[in-house]
């Protein structure tokens, strides 16, 4: 059964355990590929983790001039191949989710590859293993997409371009506003 990342970012407490966990993954050269962004710095402590969304048609790979970004058989979009990547940063700019980074000194792109060395052997990725609040979970792809515990998103429509992602995001509960913002709030100045 294919498993994917499920992110319920309402649960995130911004502890950055996932960032540290990611650094510890064996193939990652102590560079974290996970992001924890503060959503409204100075106003709230709301934070959210973002791994690669593992798009079905990845803009990063399509924009790469040297075809350095490979897609594994199970759909995991891998970091650029060390031999091919020329550090041009096209992928960084093309990705609608803001994921790939480029190391300017080593001239190589790096991004979340779902700890492929672990997940390809059935083990959960480091971020999911260390998250203390279960914000990041490694779950069955079919199950989370067909019977989600709450509203989820894995299809994105940008002006008619539909991008489907394998990573699934749990939407915040804005109906009752128990965790989210009220209508009208949350505009950053």
């Amino acid at each position, binding site marked *: 059964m294919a498993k994917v990342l499920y992110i319920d970012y309402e649960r995130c407490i911004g502890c950055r355990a996932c960032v540290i966990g990611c650094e510890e993954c*064996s193939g990652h050269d102590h560079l974290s590929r996970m*992001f924890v962004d503060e959503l409204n710095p100075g106003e709230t402590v709301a934070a959210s983790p973002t791994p690669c969304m593992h798009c079905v048609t990845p803009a990063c790979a399509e924009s790469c*001039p040297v075809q350095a970004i490979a897609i594994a058989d199970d759909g995991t979009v891998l970091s650029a191949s060390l031999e091919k990547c020329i*550090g041009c940063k096209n992928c960084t700019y093309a990705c609608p989710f*803001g994921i790939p980074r480029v190391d300017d000194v080593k001239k190589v792109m790096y991004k979340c590859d779902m700890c492929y060395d672990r997940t390809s052997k059935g083990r959960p990725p480091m971020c999911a293993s260390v998250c203390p609040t279960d914000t990041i979970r490694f779950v069955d792809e079919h199950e989370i997409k067909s019977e989600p515990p709450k509203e989820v998103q894995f299809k*994105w429509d940008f002006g008619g*371009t539909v991008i489907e992602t394998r990573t699934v995001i749990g939407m*915040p509960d804005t109906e009752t506003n128990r965790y989210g913002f009220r209508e009208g709030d*949350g505009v950053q100045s």
Partner: protein
Amino acid sequence: MNFYPYEEDSLLFSKKSARNVFIVLVILFFSVYIGSEQFGYFDMALYGYLWATVLCFVLLTIRITSWTLRPPTRRLWKQGIKMMFSAKGLAFVFKTLYTNIGEQRFIRNRSGYRWAQHMFISWGVIFSFAITFSLVLNWLHFELVEPKTYAAVVFGIPMFRMGVDSLLAIAIYHGLNWTGIAVIIGCGMALYRRVTDEKKIVEQSKEYDFFPLFLLIAISITGSLLTVSALWMEGAFYLGIALAHQITVIVFLLYFPFSKFWHLPLRFLAVMVPMYHAMGEQKQCARCGIEYATATQIKDVQLALEKRHLSVPIDHTTLHFSDLCSQCRRVSHRLSAYGAKVHFRKANLVLESNEKNGLQLKKGGDQ
């Protein structure tokens, strides 16, 4: 990956490949013609290599054609060539040629061991290529001009003379042995690293990695054995070794355009990149205002994505997601999913979710 063809015209690839292959063949033919002085100095012993080399050039041309038809590759080539025509651009290119290909500094920054290993292999292979191609295509040959003096003739033009058993002559005759030794050292280091360093790098598979190394070692060893046989074994087994060497080289030449060695041509595009990044006007993120890219590159990426039917616009605005820095892209998605308004301070726009997980201009707001 996405199933759209690179170009609207489905025959474009075939047409361009046919044209490019034709050009390459004509150039090759004339270079052989001139080099061998109207086929006067044709080295028949290298006949098999000649055909494999020609085939290798043809395959490589087809592969390069298909590669450069990809929209992002095409853009980068075009920009690079355009920028190269300025003095500043040219200076960049030479500087990067040196740091990137000559010294390969970026690999040294990855690790010293890796760098040493790569320098041995890459320079060994590049020089071997240079020597092999110039001999096989008859661009270069040696003529006995005096009983004890050779002249090196390049494209029919005598370049220099040397004594038959001068140091220079020995260095040159054994050129392929020296490069072969470098390759063997490099490959040995690479093998050692692969065997001892159990850390699995996900971007490369074992098969992909070991076969090219074994192939290079096989070529270098059989090549050096030819010299050993000729110098110290009175030519014993020479024919068998020559055949084995020829087979390994031919396999290499045909495998080259479709293998790990393909990254060799790719590296030449890397020479354009620092110039591409330094010479454009900086662009500010539409939300936070930091300078995060050059305007040219963002345009190029947007064009390439559009050609692949992968544009990611922000609805009812002229902006795309690539007009934001990476962090603002991530944060905007999250804020809009919370139902919050997202203020693009720099562009002076207020956005909200388009209800389909993308962003749009806030209803009632104006651009």
